[in-house]
């Protein structure tokens, strides 16, 4: 079985994100980027399936600018076998990405697609679900455990109030949640070795997909600053404030 893992290049989670002065978008110039952390979990899960003999080949794909090949190299260094860069300088949106991925799935024919549940830049949480709909495949989202048994995938999902286990007929879509695994990191020697692994460059047109943005950003703003605290003189005053000012009691 082949496993396809889409990975996204996002602003590094350690970076303090700043909004552009004109409020049009987040500042991306000269900002450190990295693989979306949920995608790292997806890559790790694919590698573990391969290590357990449940998968033969791991293909990673990224849709984005030339620099997204660094993200693919990281996935290759972690243990993916080959990579596809679908190059576009457009601002990608979940539907456009899902359409490209549908084309990639049709070309690669994986038994399983594992995606991160969402990207930490736009927090859309849509691509996996859209891809499942476009393909007409079963989906197991917010996975905290994945067990492959023949042509079935048992996926434990993190839902409000507990865990839900669903059984999917493969091929299927899985989106990875935080507790699925602890991903390994790419060491420098492995990054160097990854340079020798195959990386194909394609365009959205190669998959017959249109990635033109359909959404319009009206405004981008930073969260408001925290207000200065006050010191209360007694427990009674604290309780009073919690009741009457904060309204939490």
């Amino acid at each position, binding site marked *: 079985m082949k496993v396809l893992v889409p990975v996204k290049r996002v602003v590094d989670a350690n970076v303090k994100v700043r909004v552009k002065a004109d409020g049009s978008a987040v500042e991306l110039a000269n900002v450190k980027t990295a693989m979306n952390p949920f995608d790292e979990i997806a890559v790790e899960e694919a590698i573990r399936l391969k290590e357990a003999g449940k998968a033969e080949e791991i293909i990673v794909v990224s849709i984005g600018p030339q620099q997204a090949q660094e993200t693919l190299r990281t996935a290759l260094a972690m243990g993916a076998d080959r990579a596809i860069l679908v190059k576009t300088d457009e601002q990608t949106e979940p539907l456009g990405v899902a359409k490209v991925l549908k084309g990639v799935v049709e070309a690669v024919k994986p038994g399983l697609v594992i995606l991160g549940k969402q990207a930490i830049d736009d927090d859309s949480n849509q691509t996996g679900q859209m891809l499942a709909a476009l393909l007409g495949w079963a989906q197991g989202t917010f996975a905290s455990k994945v067990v492959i048994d023949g042509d079935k995938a048992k996926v434990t999902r993190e839902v409000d109030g507990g865990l839900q286990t669903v059984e999917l007929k493969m091929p299927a879509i899985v989106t990875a949640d935080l507790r699925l695994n602890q991903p390994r990191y790419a060491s420098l020697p492995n990054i160097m070795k990854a340079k020798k692994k195959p990386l194909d460059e394609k365009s959205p047109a190669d998959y017959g997909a249109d990635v033109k943005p359909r959404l319009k950003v009206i405004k981008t703003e930073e969260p408001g600053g925290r207000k*200065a605290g006050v*010191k209360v003189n007694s427990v009674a005053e604290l309780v009073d404030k919690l009741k009457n000012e904060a309204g939490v009691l």
Partner: protein
Amino acid sequence: MMDPRYEVLFETVKIGPVTAPNRFVSMPHAIGHSYLMPNGAIGIRETRAEGGWGIVSMQLSEIDPTSDLSGLPYERLWDDGDVRTHAKSNERIHAHGALASIELGHTGIRSRGISNGYPAQGPSVLPTLKPEMPLMARAMTKEDIRRLRENYRAATRRAKQAGYDIVYVYAAHDASILWHFLQPAYNRRTDEYGGSFENRLRLFREVLEETKEEAGNDIAVAVRFAVHEASGPKRITHDGEGRAVIAALADLPDLWDVNISGWSRDSGTSRYDAEGFQEEFVSFVKQVTGKPVLGVGRFTSPDTMVSQIRRGVLDLIGSARASIADPFLPRKLREGRIDDIRECIGCNMCVAAETIGVELRCTQNPTISEEWRRDWHPERVPAAKTREHVLIVGSGPAGLEAALVLARAGHHVTVTEAREELGGRVTREARIKGLSAWRRVADYRLYQLRQMANVDLYSGSAVDAEAIAEFEADHVLLATGATWRRDGAGRSRLTPVDGFEDVAATPDDILDGMEIRGPVVIYDDDHYYMANALAVDLAVRGLEVQIVTPLPTLAPWMAQTLEQPRMIAELKSYGVRMHPNTAAIGWANGALSVVRSDTGEELPAIGGTTLLSVTVRMPDPSLSEALAARGIAHRVIGDADAPGTIQLVVFSGHRNARELLGQEPAPGHFKRERPTLFY
């Protein structure tokens, strides 16, 4: 944008006739540049003014030749010939909108009188306050007192002429003649300057009144006064005469700058004193005076600073060490860049630089003292001419500092670390009890590097010469650190000690998590923090610990950082037995054979289950040699070059990066301060 929580720190404060633009005060403190090195000193002060400190202070300035701290690099304002330098300094401070203050003082019986032949003078004939020096102070006559008061007046006039906004009357640190007169342990006079509290306070009051008179309506007068003695005679306390002095002089000065005495307690390190540790002693002051109150306490957290203001403890936040570690602290806060603050780690290497008489040094800020002579700026690095790729092997303090400088210059920097965790020795050593603040050396740099698109950090990535060759970087820096010797060879004895090689544990073993069984015998031929910090760390785990050292006292370098007395008290409190002046000659059958270091006389053997050898660290040259064999040019930096203090290896990282960038002249040829030649 500034966080509204911190707005209170940027309020103006009226101090007599002048107004401080904000509440941040860069304190008068020793900066290791005496009157002989004015250019370097101006560089330090101007950088602080640029960095947003509302008041930038001149260090202790002696008012006349009878105050003589021979060998220590202090300032002078003896006569009109000194005014020009001070005026130039103030011009540079004022250019950035800050006020300038000067701590005028006479060091009384703290003086030495060796360099210029005037004996120290004080209230009574007393040994000078340096028991290891065979010197006595003379008792001042009425004429001497009159002259001292006149000299204080003259110094104030000169300070005014030099453009200072605030002039100090100095009475702190057990190092001021006014304090010495006040101190009942020193003042044995029977005239109107001795005896009763009012008499002992007389000289202090007279000088303060006369300074006010000279200051007139143009400049403010501050008093720096230690309200409590935590060491020394301990006769002046915050609930006794310390409070009485504030009450007696309450609204006479325009500003009260209060702290504790002596210097070692005022400058408590992170190992022994938490941020804000002076609050319990100084918090009463604002209740006794209506004038603004300035205080210190190794403040690095803006939240703690705000808390001091809001709770009515202080009106102005004084910083010596925090302003050394980050001269741009106020500006970063104002610009909402709190994460960019380079926090003081409280190690007192700055103090050690002063006590050994060299230019100010700082573990966190390698650019201190280099502003003028090397053109190093704490925040800016000139852009590299072309963008090149640099591979740095090792993510300890040297590697990270070099990475930061090179990345700021625009190079693409890849840092590779063999361990799973970044930060090298500071991350590891910070796990030892008492040393947690040292982690800030790595934290600050890693945070900065993680923001930059031109930096890649790889942990768990050991590389050999082949991998480095294959990487094809334009430049290679080896910052691979050093490891502790196991064989007992150290600083006082350069050859191995019998029986150590195969059995002794080292600090590296402990940091790697090795199980240690007691009783433990620590052999310390390193003489800084490692042996004693580990002794406490192991004692806390319930192990019986003895510490053996060939030198006459334990960890004498910690006398330079002012920590030695407290370290010894700490060891004592944990039941650690100490054996100074004791040289190891061999370890066999669970016992350390020892002799007296000075006479060679045999001493009873010291038994234990584990021998912990803390001597010197050695670099491993093999990677450098393998690169050389392949003809790959590289630099060896930090501990891998010369194992040293964290301060020295951070500096090494910075200097090597600047040299790589071509921003350094040939080694040793930074700008020099030259004396005037009269021949």
